[in-house]
């Protein structure tokens, strides 16, 4: 990166950091309370990362920007919670997993295969269509009410560090467990991409469909694998989020926020999805709690997007994304 661009980016982060600590400087907020908010923000950031991961996977491997990822999260959560009314959790989980693989297979057969080598915008629109379809299907089959998902996550918050800080810091155990699950999933996926031959094949496919085909990579099977893995990620995200918020339609809107996360981190980067999620979760929480009252609340509706927008002005390819060099 050129020196001026690097300076601008550093200045941007410095500004963000300053904004983050400003409640303590200007509003007299004490450190323990601030830390609570920060931890809470980071936790919800991890949840965003989880959804963003599915997006990055599909983009890395098929070059498709999967707008339906949020719908997949909702679909998986809905299926799970309704099946759990009839069968034990483990069985329901396995069934939904099979369902997501079947969905991946159908998507590949009916949507991706006929549209291979079309431009990116066409594929993006197709995923938009898939999102609408999944929404309708999910509600049609499983109903449109709000459902409580109980997977045995501990609901009581814990107080930690009560010897360091007076009164301690309130932390949600559920969030911590979610963070650990997400962390494990991310590590597994990163290893998968870097170390295995399938992972390499996926990266080849992301670069150039035709070229990958011409060296014998089975495009169709690869896509089914990728969308299945994305489906798995969606399922995990659905479980974690559904357990925290209840399974309802608005889950999808929250999943929409994974888009600015991916933007911030760079479309093709798994660590980018993580860092982007953390940044957005943190920034959103801090601004909602400390900036919100000044502006009338509701900041979290747009903060993530505006942050991504401003960041892109400095680095159009995101934090860890690949720089686009225009060649003629």
């Amino acid at each position: 990166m050129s020196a001026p661009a690097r300076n601008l980016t550093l200045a941007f982060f410095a500004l963000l950091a300053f904004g983050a600590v400003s409640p303590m400087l200007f509003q007299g907020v004490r450190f323990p309370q601030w830390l609570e908010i920060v931890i809470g923000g980071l936790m919800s950031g991890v949840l965003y990362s989880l959804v963003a991961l599915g997006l990055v996977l599909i983009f890395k491997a098929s070059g498709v920007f999967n707008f339906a990822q949020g719908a997949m999260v909702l679909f998986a959560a809905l299926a799970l919670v309704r099946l759990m009314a009839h069968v034990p959790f483990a069985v329901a989980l396995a069934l939904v997993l099979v369902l997501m693989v079947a969905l991946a297979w159908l998507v590949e057969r009916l949507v991706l295969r006929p549209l291979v080598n079309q431009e990116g915008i066409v594929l993006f629109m197709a995923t938009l269509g898939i999102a609408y379809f999944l929404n309708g299907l999910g509600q049609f089959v499983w109903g449109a009410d709000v459902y409580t998902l109980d997977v045995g996550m501990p609901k009581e918050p814990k107080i930690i560090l009560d010897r360091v800080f007076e009164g301690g810091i309130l932390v949600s155990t559920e969030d911590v467990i979610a963070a650990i699950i997400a962390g494990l999933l991310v590590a597994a996926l990163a290893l998968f991409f870097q170390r295995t031959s399938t992972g390499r094949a996926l990266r080849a496919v992301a670069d150039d469909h035709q070229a990958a085909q011409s060296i014998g990579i089975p495009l169709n099977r690869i896509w089914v694998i990728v969308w299945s893995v994305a489906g798995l990620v969606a399922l995990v995200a659905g479980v974690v989020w559904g357990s925290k918020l209840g399974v309802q339609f608005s889950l999808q809107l929250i999943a929409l926020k994974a888009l600015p996360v991916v933007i911030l981190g760079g479309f093709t980067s798994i660590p980018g999805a993580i860092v982007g999620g953390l940044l957005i979760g943190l920034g959103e929480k801090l601004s909602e709690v400390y900036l919100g009252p000044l502006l009338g609340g509701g900041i979290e509706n747009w903060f993530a997007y505006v942050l991504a927008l401003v960041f892109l002005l400095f680095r159009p390819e995101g934090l860890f994304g690949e720089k686009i060099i225009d060649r003629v």
Partner: protein
Amino acid sequence: MIYRETGQFRTSYASDQQLFPILQDRVLVIGFLAFAFVVVPFVASDYLFRAILTPFLILSLAALGLNILVGYCGQLSLGTGGFMAVGAYAAYNLAVRIPSLNLIVVFVLAGLCATLVGALFGIPSLRIKGFYLAVTTLAAQFFLDWLFSRVGWFTNDSSSGSVAAPPLELFGHPIQGPAEKYLLVLSIVSVFALLAKNLTRGAVGRSWMATRDMDVAAEVIGIRPLYAKLTAFAVSSFYVGVAGAMWGFVYLGGWEPLAFDVNRSFELLFMVIIGGLGSILGSFLGAAFIVILPIALNRLPSALGVPLSTATVSELELMVFGGLIVFFLIAEPRGLARLWAIGKEKLRLWPFPH
């Protein structure tokens, strides 16, 4: 046999470059317009005006604006609903705070407000491209959503967040009936469509399409990306803003922020894709499709004798909607306008197959 060009010679560049060089096209278009202006107001039912014709025309205008941005200039935007809202709220504030303003002036000024906002949110497009840009336009959408629901000034401090447009009148003549509203909208949309067609045929249209197809090469031949992209955002937002003002004033009568939410943005994008990117006619075809589809789906179950609850119908609607989008993208990614063009080509050769 019918649609033959033989015998029609153009002897000057001016006549070759006219809007409808083929005589049959001219006859068709003029006939159609005459029908729309003179016959329809007397024969169509109130329901037809209210539920189909008026919304179709207004949404066509918005789709036209979006098509200029996405189809002609290649800048993907998911914030169209927000720009419609700017037009609507600007028109509301102008009409309420300066009651003496002529209705057309209100619409034009509202459009200009949308142009300013659109150009502002268009500046990032100089650095940001493709899907990245799409997501940043969502920033515009959600921010504008928030702005109009939280900042009381825009809604004249209405407690519920919803506003009601003042009664319409033009040059002293009140516009109340559905037929009158239809004629008002039809006039405005016809003029705007012509202007859009001229723009896309001219130098600025070529700069848009060049930027869309190969922006580096465009720059090399002297087309400034700044000019092309900002004019695209500006013109597009103007159209969308005027459409938003008309949507609120003429169609809805009163509205709340939800009328222009992100679903509206997606709806308009679907119209443009299904109708045909980079085609004026396509914007109209796509809007017609999206307006008629829910009505058709609503009527179909009862027509077939299958009783379904409204909830089920709306769920099925979503499924059919999504399915149709995928179907269209597979069958004809260039949309209904392309199907229309293929039909015309076949008609030229008829009765010969090729």
